[in-house]
Each structure stands twice: as structure tokens, then as C-alpha cells.
């Protein structure tokens, strides 16, 4: 590998997305360094999910640009961004409920698998070997996120908390460089939230850059190296946990609308 990159892994410049008259993301600029945990916080409707959708190609921006690892990736399709090393989870689950849990994770490995039609139809021997490897690695990833009990489960028979982790396992299947998590702890009980907490820390240790969107402030303040605060689609401020916590604009944005999750 080359020397550490002097530039940020991801930089966003004047990024905007409007839905009709609603400026969901408005002239947003920030940079994310490689290998850190970055959180994006803000009140409901601040534009966090929209931002993630822009970064991962689910939406095309109205204007502005996104640079990932030195190249302009603005407007690329989600699968093309996945190929460059982005993976994500969803606030509203996007599980493949028509498949088993393990197959969900195997889909996450899609880019590293033999996906040719002819090899598939004729079941080339090399493909069968790849399938075994894929099943094993999927099991490994499921254990990594704490889904040991669901190795043979169908996705539609799993509880909500397990599905949240299944999405993380699927996202890890592509060996991403940048992992974006949209409210991974929403709807989880304190024990489960704590597990997500340690999981994020372990991911960061393994060198993956994590972008965390989360309302649970204790989780955010505990794991983040860097926080970006959004309000009405604009950047309110950014900095370390301490800087953000004490910023009067942040307190105003949250307390002004009494939406701060209890710490």
C-alpha cells in the first residue's frame, strides 16, 4: 500500500438536495478522515438520511459534489460506489425477507463473487467451491456481529434487533473502506445498544471508516472521533464530542425543540 493519504477520504462540497420546495440537504460541505468514527447528528428531519442517500448514490444531488479517495464520484450509481468501497445500512430496514439470514450476508459479498450467467447456469465446479467459501465467510461475519444464534434462520423469522445487525453483517460482506450506518441503535434495548457500541469500536479498530447517524447521544459521544451537526439540511457545526456538546448552537437546536435524547 502507498503512504498515508494527506487528503481526506471523503469530501463533500456544497452538496444540496431539494424535494420540491424542501431543502433536505443545503449547501453542505465537510471532510471525513480515513479510519475514524464520524457521527452525523441533528434533530428529526435535519437531512441525515438524505445525506446518506446522496453519499451512497441512492439519490442524485441537486448540486454540489462528492469526492471519494481522490476521485469525483458525484452522481455515481449505488452499485458503482459499492465497488469503490462504500457500504451502508438503512434506517428503515432493507432486508431481503425472501431469503435466509446467511444468504442476506452472502449477497453482501456480491462484488467478490463469480456472478457470470454462464458459470451459474452450468454450475461450473469453480463456482461450487466459491459457494462453500461464501457460506463460510457469511457465517463468520454473522458471528462477528453477534448473530451466532441465527446462522440457519430465515430473515423473516428474526427479531428487529437481530435484523439491524444482519444489515451490518451484509454491509461488511463487501469489505468496505467506508461504512455508513443509519440509526443502528434505533429501537434497540440498552444491552443491544451497548453491543452496537462495541461493534462500532471494533470496526474502527479494523481500519474501516465509520459514518454513524444516530439519535442516541450516549452512543454518539462515546464512540465518535468527529461529529457533524445538521439542522434544516445545513451544517450547524462540527468537531470533537466535547466541542459539539458545549456548542450553544447545538444546545439551542436540540433543546429549542426539546428533542435531545436523554444522556
Amino acid at each position, binding site marked *: 500500500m502507498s503512504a498515508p493519504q494527506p487528503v481526506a477520504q471523503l469530501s463533500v462540497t456544497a452538496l444540496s438536495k431539494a424535494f420540491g420546495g424542501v431543502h433536505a440537504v443545503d449547501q453542505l460541505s465537510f471532510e471525513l478522515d480515513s479510519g475514524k468514527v464520524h457521527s452525523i447528528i441533528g434533530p428529526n428531519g435535519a437531512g441525515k438520511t438524505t445525506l446518506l442517500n446522496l453519499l451512497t448514490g441512492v439519490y442524485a444531488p441537486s448540486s454540489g459534489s462528492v469526492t471519494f479517495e481522490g476521485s469525483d464520484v458525484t452522481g455515481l450509481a449505488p452499485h458503482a460506489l459499492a465497488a469503490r468501497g462504500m457500504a451502508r445500512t438503512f434506517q428503515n430496514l432493507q*432486508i431481503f425477507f425472501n431469503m435466509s439470514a446467511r*444468504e442476506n450476508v452472502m449477497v453482501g459479498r456480491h462484488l467478490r463473487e463469480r456472478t457470470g450467467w454462464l458459470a451459474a447456469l452450468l454450475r461450473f465446479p469453480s*463456482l461450487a467451491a466459491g459457494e462453500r467459501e461464501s457460506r463460510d465467510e457469511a457465517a463468520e461475519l454473522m458471528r462477528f456481529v453477534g448473530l451466532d444464534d441465527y446462522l440457519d434462520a430465515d430473515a423473516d423469522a428474526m427479531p428487529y434487533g437481530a435484523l439491524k445487525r444482519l444489515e451490518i453483517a451484509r454491509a461488511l460482506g463487501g469489505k468496505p473502506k467506508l461504512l455508513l450506518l443509519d440509526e443502528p441503535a434505533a429501537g434497540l434495548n440498552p444491552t443491544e445498544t451497548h453491543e452496537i457500541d462495541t461493534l462500532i469500536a471494533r470496526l474502527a479498530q479494523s481500519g474501516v471508516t465509520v459514518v454513524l447517524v444516530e439519535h442516541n447521544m450516549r452512543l454518539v459521544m462515546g464512540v465518535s472521533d468527529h461529529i457533524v451537526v445538521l439542522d434544516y439540511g445545513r451544517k450547524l457545526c462540527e468537531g470533537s464530542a466535547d466541542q459539539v456538546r458545549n456548542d450553544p448552537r447545538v444546545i439551542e437546536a436540540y433543546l429549542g425543540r426539546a428533542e435531545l435524547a436523554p444522556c
Partner: protein
Amino acid sequence: MNWRTPRTGGLALLAAVILLLPLALVNNYWYEVAILIGINAIVCVGLNLLIGYAGQISLGHAGFFGLGAYGSAILSARYGWPPAAALAATTAGVALIALLVGRPILKLKGHYLAMATLGMGIIISIVIVTEDRLTGGPDGMSVPAFTLFGMSLAGERVWYWIIGGTLVGAVWFALNLIESPAGRALRALHGSEVGAQVSGIDATRAKVGVFVISAMFASVAGSMTAHYSGFITPGKVSFFHSIELVTMVVFGGMASTFGAVIGAAALTLLPQLLTVLKEYEMVVFGAVMVSTMIFFPRGLLPSLMLALARKRK
């Protein structure tokens, strides 16, 4: 070998049924029915990959069946091509057409995709009816017998084995595809398109690919039908045949390859059995369809399997 997986056990069972069925086929009429079931089943197995697994509708697959039938017929009857070469060239040509048509229309979703495929089927049907110098128009055209290595393949008993063998092959292809990374991508698209895309799946490429494969299945079945029956008319290219095919897939059970075979068998056989009812035939046929979908909402095979699994617990 694990006989309980579809790819071994199910395939072996299908082969056994095809091998033993002639014991029950008392005359040529029943051979004809069995062959018709086989032909419909080949199309349905392919169509089920598109509808049942990838979750994309097509109301135009009779068009691909017709292109296969008329492609083989025209190349062998009008241009004197050897039937095997005509079949290969026709299948390749249909694949290309499906690719060109599929790219724009598979960007559509739901009702819009249904409309677009419907339109495609109707256009193919109109072209076949109006190009009467090549196709014989509404009167149809005759097709030479299939010859292979100088042997002429004719008669119900010969075609029973050809169609039976092709069906086993079609099912094997389908089962292989479904249990491969490419097949998983199709099922993922059905489960959550955006979830699939962010996992690195190129949705358009996957949809167009399975559309082409299902069109090729239909085309091969069409080519074989042309040579087997020796005479083809535009009837099998009609919109109604497209609907019939989709109905078979849904009736047998979506996302189940053997369900598609059973759906094709049931809905091909049923009208034959109901002819004794004369003018009440269509009423009873409709009633059977409606009650099946009420009592077996997932389609025949998946509902039965589910009931069986519940009982075992």
C-alpha cells in the same frame, strides 16, 4: 449426495416421472397432452426466473415463444437451413432482441413494466400476422421435420423424449442459476432493490440478464413446437397465451421452479379433463382457479410444502 435438495432430489423425481409417465399414456392423444405440458413447463420455468425470483413481470413472453417458432420455421422452410442451425440462430437472435428491448423497458416498474411487455408482445404478434409473405399470416405455415445427423425426428413418441429431456435440462439450468451468486442477486432485487444495489448489484444488468435467459427458454420451446407440430399459426403468439403462461407460474407457485412445472401441468391438463363438462367447462375452470388462489395463496406447490412443514413440527 443430499437427495433432499431440489437440485438432486427434485430433479431425480422429475426425471423419474418423465421416465415412468409413458406407462400411463394410453394413446397418441395423451402423448400430445404430455408434450404440450412439457412445452409450457419449459417456458414457465424460464418465466418464473423473471417473475417469481427476480420479481419482474412480463406479459409478452408468448411473443418470444412465437419468435422462436417462426424463426425456426422461416429459416428451415423458406431458406432451407438445417433445423439445428435454425434453432441455434433463432435462439441467439431472440436473445439479442430481448437484450435490446429489455434494456429500456426493465427500467420501468410494476404496472408500467406490465404495459411495456404487453405492448412488446402485441407488436411481435402483429408483425407475424402481417408479414404474410414470410410467415403465412393468419393462415400459418408448415414447418419441415427436425433432422439431426440425417435422422428425421417425427411422431409423438420421439418428441415426448425430446421435450422431456429438454425440460429436465431447463429445470437443471434454473436450479443452478437460483443457487448461484447471480441467482441470489435476482432474489435480492425482489427482496429490496435498494438493498441489492448498495450491496453492489447492478440492477439493470441483473434484470436484463434474466429477461434474456427467460426469453431464450421461451424461444427454444417455440422452435421445438414448430418442428414437432409441423404447422404453426399466430394463435400461440397472442396476448392470451402470454396471460396463460403467467397464470401457470402464479398458479404453481412463484419462486418455485417445480411449482412452475406443476402449474404448467395443472393448467394444461385441466381443460382437457373438463371437456366432458361441455359448455360448463370455462365456468368450472374459473372456479378451480379462484378457489386455488384462495386456499393456496402462495400457489400450489409452496402452499403444500408449507402445510407439510407445519405438520412435521
